[in-house]
């Protein structure tokens, strides 16, 4: 088999591994980073399929702008969390007993970000 055919098969297997690996990232940041590498492998695959236009566009857009937008969303969400903490302190609910009975699980909004 030609060398390009072997490289193509290896890259395709890596692609599936990356796509499955996004599910098993423990936090959202890990998922975004694995997605970035998935995009980069896709870019090389476009070169092997003899389409250089698609390769440049995928590199700039997939591994560039799209992943950066994901990370910026994470940053905005973190900022909102900080704001909620400030509100919490202002509302006078800094007492741990009160916090525990106000929200049954400690860090209810955290499980939204890092869990699942």
């Amino acid at each position, binding site marked *: 088999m030609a060398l390009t055919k072997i490289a193509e098969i290896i890259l395709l297997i890596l692609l599936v591994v990356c796509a499955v690996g996004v599910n098993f990232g423990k936090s959202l940041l890990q998922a975004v980073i694995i997605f970035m590498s998935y995009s980069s492998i896709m870019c090389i695959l476009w070169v092997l399929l003899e*389409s250089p*236009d698609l390769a*440049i566009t995928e590199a700039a857009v997939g591994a560039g*702008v799209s992943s950066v*937008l994901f990370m910026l969303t994470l940053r905005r969400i973190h900022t909102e969390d900080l704001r909620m903490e400030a509100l919490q302190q202002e*509302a006078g609910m800094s007492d741990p007993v009160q916090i525990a009975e106000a*929200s049954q699980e400690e860090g209810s909004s955290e499980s939204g970000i890092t869990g699942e």
Partner: protein
Amino acid sequence: MKIFDLNFDVEEEPIPDGEDHDLLENIMDGEEVHDSPREKVKTENEYYRNYVRSTQWVQKLIRTENKGFNVFYFSVAVVSCVLLIGMLLFTISYLPRYGVENPESTLVVKRYVENGLQETGAVNIISGIILDYRAFDTLGESHVLFTALMCVTVLLLRDSKNMRTQYEDFYTIRDEKYHELYRESIMKFVAAVLLPCLLLYGAYVLLNGQISPGGGFSGGAVLGSGLIICAAAFGFRSTDRVITRKTANLIAFFSLGFYSFAKGYVFFTGANGLENHIPKGTPGAILSGGLILPLDIAVGLVVATTMFGFYSLFRRGSIGGNK
């Protein structure tokens, strides 16, 4: 060792008092920076207590009620996904063989490849297809980009009419000020090395759309990435000189308008059976391909503005400067 003698200090003009609502001091003093029409809005305190009460109730509900449904849902999801992949793989096995030319898929392409150079003047056949033979698709797609930028603006814009309370963007603005005061030197160095290369490469790919691989979308995306790196490393004051709100609007408006008018002539020439006399030039020169070069520039500018606009809106809530 000092390879580059880089001076990154941006001369900051003094801001007259009371005019920059960005300043932390204005917000921390507790003054209201908006005149909101919602005079009857509840205070933050009540809002928070209400939210906490409903969260507690909702979590209790979800935990106690949904166990059976969860099991059912996941099993059905697994079965349906396996079925979907199996069905599609079964269809793949009936497809014609990969990598072998089959006449069903290359019947239309004969015309594009064999007469492409004479009819469009472009050496890159793909550019000739998307900007000459099928130019309306690209026109619609540029409008899709612009519409996406408008949608994100509607959702994420924060200006003086929009801030709800003084806490609304406190942390966003605090992060911005921190970032402007203490910019990291690794980022600055890498950006100083990469930025001229990126902008040059983006302009090269954009202008050589008809000769070599590239074109409007690729060049625009690379240019947009260059602008993003500039804003991320050197703060937004460095890009506020180039892209302001007015500039972004003007670029999008004129580019899309020019594209629409430039490809509107085919309605007249095609309907009346006229030839189009736009010169095609010699293939391989940079000024060739008829209208492909100006259209490339128009599309590339729209794409670059859109990418940078997304970054700017996510980061600080406005495209070019605030208030």
